[in-house]
Structures are given as C-alpha cells and as structure tokens.
C-alpha cells in the first residue's frame, strides 16, 4: 500500500526572472513500512525533494498524494496540522530548540497534539529510554554530544507516531561510530513498521535501505 507518492513534481527557484529548476518532474511512490534512501551528488535536489514531500516547502507544480488525496496545495494551516499529525523530521544539524531540555524538545509536538504536560513528559521519558538517553532527559542540547542530540532529534520525530519519518542527512555531522548507531536506530524503527525516507550522500548508509533512489540534476536517474 502506498504511503506517499508524487506525480510530475517540479520545484523551481527564481532569481529575478532567472528560473532554476531544482526538481524537474519527480515521480516517486513509497510504500507503507518501506525505508527509502535518496542519494545523489550535491545540488542534485535530494533535500529539495525531501522538503517538498514533507510539506516544509511548496512545489511549483505536480502532485503529492497521500491516501488518494493531493496534499501539495493544502493551506498553510492544514500543512502545519498535517506535519504535526502525520510526519516526523530529523534534520542534519539536529534542529533542537536550545532553551528546551531533551525531554521538553520531545514533549513539544505531543503537547501540541493535546497531551497534558504530565502525559507528554511520561511519554518523552519512554521514548528517550528507547533511544538510550533516559539519563539525559533534563539536559539542554548544549549539554549533549552531537550523537546524543541527533538521537533526541529522532526521538522527537517519532514521539507522536508519524506515518512517515523524513531524515535529511542525519549522519552528516556525526562520526562513523555515532552514524552507525543512528542508522541502526532507524533500521530498528523501520523493522517495527515505520516508513522512512532518508536523504544521504553516504553510500554505506544508503545501502541499508529497502530501496535506493538516485537523483541527478533534479531527475531520478535510477531506483535500486
């Protein structure tokens, strides 16, 4: 069953009247429970595709379909709600809120979904335990290592049980040991049924995915 698919997805950037096409008509379908890695050289459009799929950016044209519904032209408010309820994000630079502790970063989307502070805190501790960071629940991001911050970022992304987890080069700022740990964590989540779409430029980690999608100059060149 298809979790998300795109039809002729195009994204252009404009510098005055000069148009630069970052995505030139992407057709991609990701099944439920699938782990898809998107790879390609710098400037190929990997991250751009991820941000369009995750509704963080607006495509210029084309469709993004989830459960037979074209969500690419949702209003801003509906996109916000959709991200909150259906998607989780892991960013390259962890993107934790610096004034919030590890637990509070995870609590935020949970509270936004209506959980009480107490329930959100309990749930955040459970998730931190799953990623091996229960002892660090009260630490601010500045008190955590890069690997720990990225695991908190993953914990935040999965805390509200999203349908799809998007990861944008999650290992880019980690050493190889921490990178392995993080990819193992993603694989473990995928084994439990989590749909994952990950952008990476590291072949080693791309290969662990169910499917590799190669992008070059805004076009899919091969699917492995």
């Amino acid at each position, binding site marked *: 069953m298809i979790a998300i698919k795109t039809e002729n997805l195009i994204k252009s950037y404009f510098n005055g009247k000069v148009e630069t096409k970052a995505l030139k008509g992407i057709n991609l379908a990701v099944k439920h429970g699938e782990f898809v890695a998107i790879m390609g050289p710098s400037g190929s459009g990997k991250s751009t595709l991820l941000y369009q799929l995750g509704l*963080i*950016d607006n495509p210029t044209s084309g469709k993004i379909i989830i459960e037979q519904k074209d969500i690419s032209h949702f209003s801003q*408010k509906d996109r916000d709600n959709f991200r*909150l309820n259906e998607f989780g994000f892991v960013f390259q630079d962890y993107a934790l*809120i610096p004034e919030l502790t590890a637990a509070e970063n995870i609590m*935020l989307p949970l509270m936004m979904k*209506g959980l009480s502070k107490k329930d959100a805190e309990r749930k955040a501790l459970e998730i931190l335990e799953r990623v091996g960071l229960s002892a660090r629940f009260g630490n601010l991001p500045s008190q955590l290592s890069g690997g720990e911050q990225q695991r908190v970022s993953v914990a935040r992304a999965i805390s509200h049980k999203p349908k799809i987890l998007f990861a944008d080069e999650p290992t880019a700022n980690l050493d190889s040991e921490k990178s392995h740990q993080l990819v193992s964590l993603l694989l473990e989540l995928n084994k439990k049924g989590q749909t994952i779409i990950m952008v990476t430029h590291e072949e080693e980690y791309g290969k662990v995915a169910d499917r590799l999608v190669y992008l070059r100059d805004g076009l899919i060149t091969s699917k492995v």
Partner: protein
Amino acid sequence: MAKSQDSVSAKGSVSTHDSLRIGFFLANRSVKRGNRYVTFLIIAILMLIFLNMVAVGGLLLGLIQSANKGYYTLYSGAVRVRPPEEKTYIQFPDQIINFAKSLPGFVALSPHLQSAAKLEIDYQEKKVGSEVSHVSASLEGLDPVLENQTTPIANYVSEGRFLQPGDTDKIVLGSIIAGRGSTIAFGEALQGVQVGSKVLATYGNGVQREYTVVGILKTKVAIMNLEAFVSMKELDDVLGITSTQYSNISIKIQDPNSADRFKSFFYNAGYNLQNRIETWIDAEGSAVNDINTAMGFIGNIVGAIGLMVGSITIFILIFVNAVSRRKYIGILKAIGISSNSIIISYIFQGLFYTLIGVTLGLGVLYLGLIPYFNVHPIDFPFSDATLYVTADYAGARIALLFVVAFFSGLLPAYLITRENTLDAILGR
C-alpha cells in the same frame, strides 16, 4: 483539560487552548533559559522607557500641582468669599462665617481686609527736593490667630517673624516689595529694608502710620510677595471701620479637591446672590488655569514623544530578538507547532519583559524618585516641582506600554511565521 492523543480531530486542528498552552510553555522556557544578558538588557531598557514616560510628565504635573497647592494653602484657601463687584466689603459676613462653620469638611477660616497704601523707608531723613525709596502696595489686614489656623504662611517668613496678636504697629513685608526678589516683572521695591526698619504707610484716605518691619514673607505665590501684612485691628482703625467688614474670607476645608462641593452648599443656600463664592480654581483666574492647561499639554506632548520613542525601542528589541531566532521559528513550524502558538509565545515574552520592566520602574519611582524629589524639589520661581504621579497617570502609561509590547511580540512573530518554513530554517 488535556485531551488524549487519539482524540485529535480528523482534520488535526489545534485548539486555542493548546496554542495558548504551548505558547506559554515556549515563552516560559525562552525567558528562563535564554541569554541572561539579553533578558537583563531588554528589561532594563523597558524600565527606563517607563520611567522616561512617567517622570518627565510627572515633573511638569508636579510643577502645576505644587503651584496650585501653594495658591490654595497659602493664599486663597480652598474656597474664598468675596464681595459682589459693585461692593467693597462682603455682605452679611457673620451669616457667611456661621454658615461656613456649620458645613461638613470645614476646618478653619480667616477673614481679610484690604487697602492700598504707599510705603516709604528712610522718610525721616527725607531732604527737601529729594526722593525716598517708596512703593505702592496692597496691605492685607488679618487676625494672626485665625490666619495661623487657616494657612501656614507664618512658616514662610524668611527673615524675622510673622504677626502676633497685639501687633498693631508692626508690619510684615512681601519679599518682592522688600527687595528680596526679582522686581523686573513687578516694579519698584523698598531699598535697604531690614527687620527692625521703620516704614511709613500712607493710606488712600490720607491716614499715615509708622510701622516696624518684623518679618519678610517669601513664598512661591508671587502675589503674596507683593503684599504687606498688618493686623486686622490696625486696618480697622486706619479705615475707621467699627462693624464687621471684610474684603475676603479664605476657608480651609478637609479636602481641597472637594472645593466644588463645598461651594455648592453656599449656592444651594443662596449666598451666591449676595457675594461671590469661589473655589481656588475660580480664584486663580483664567490666566493661571491657561498656564496649567498649557503645562499639562506640554506634559502630554513630552509623554507622547516618550511613548513613541519607547514603543519603537520596545518593537526593535523584541523584533531583533524574534528575527535572531528565525531559524528556530522555522524548526518549530516544521515539527508541527502551530503559527498561533509561536506568535503567542512571543506575545507572552513581550508582556513578561514589560511586566518586569514596569514593576522595577514602579519600584524605582515610588521608592526612589518620588521620595527624593519630595525632599529635594526642583526650585522654580513659582513652584517647588516634585514628581507628581497619580495612579491614573501611571496606569494609563502602563496600559499603553503593554499594548505596545503586545504588538511588538505579535508583529515580528506573525511576519516570520507567515514566511516559507524552509526559508526561515535556512535563513534565506
């Protein structure tokens, strides 16, 4: 009440309650764990903005307030009775006095008798064809005991002493006619007069009396510094008055601000048909009231400029704070935090900084500046300016500051949350 995770509506819309809750949560953490120096700076600037808004206008108000207070406490009384325009003396003075004494809020009264006279000094050494120092002045006859009950002018004698009962051949001179103040605006002064000097008074009816100067009176009410004071008994004698005759009666009441009410008692009893009943505001005259209005207007202009500068400063402070966190606003949006929650968090922050700044400002104002200016008023020629800040005056400015803080939090956050989420995250 918190909902379970599963009870989020099908459309996944976020309730206002949740937006408020998250907004407060974010604001609380941001203030608690944000950069302490930035927080301190914002609060300190807000405090100074508040003080600037209230202190400058408050000093002008204090100037007016102090001048008014001086006028009714030293000179006119809160309510003053004067004869009708065509008469020299108050009609039915005993009835007026008895009626005033029967009214609620009455404290004391002091009748006065006025007469113009020419005062001369060194008249004994006058040589044929030479001029001696002289001045024309209004002489005020009063009962020292009643005057002391009604006004504190005895405390304003800068040299010598005030009149005492039985002082029939004594005189107290106002500082201007005694040459102690500026005569530029008011004309001549007696040259070389001292306590103990002899002055000769020549009244309009030709009667001449020699008085010994026992004191020089110096107040901030300029008109009093132009007068001279003798005893009522002396003036009665000079003017040949045998019955009760007064030129005016100053009445002291418990609350000078209720002078209108006190005056209305006289009106209701019909005393206004025989005499002029005036509050101290009526007595001050339109010129003084116009000055007061003008000063108030200047105070408002200064306050408005202070508010404008303050508003822009608050806006810039909170705007820069929000813009510097643009990336995190983008991230919050990316993880599904509603724009409303983010906007609310910045509004809460703005209001919180304002609350602390205003609270500190009130502390500095009421524990520092107001007590300081009460002890060390600014010495103006017509008033001792203290810092006069009423609850209404401060309250209006506090309310305005909170309104500005509200919009200073709202606008930048609104603008950033409206822009493309990815642009905010990437700082494009």
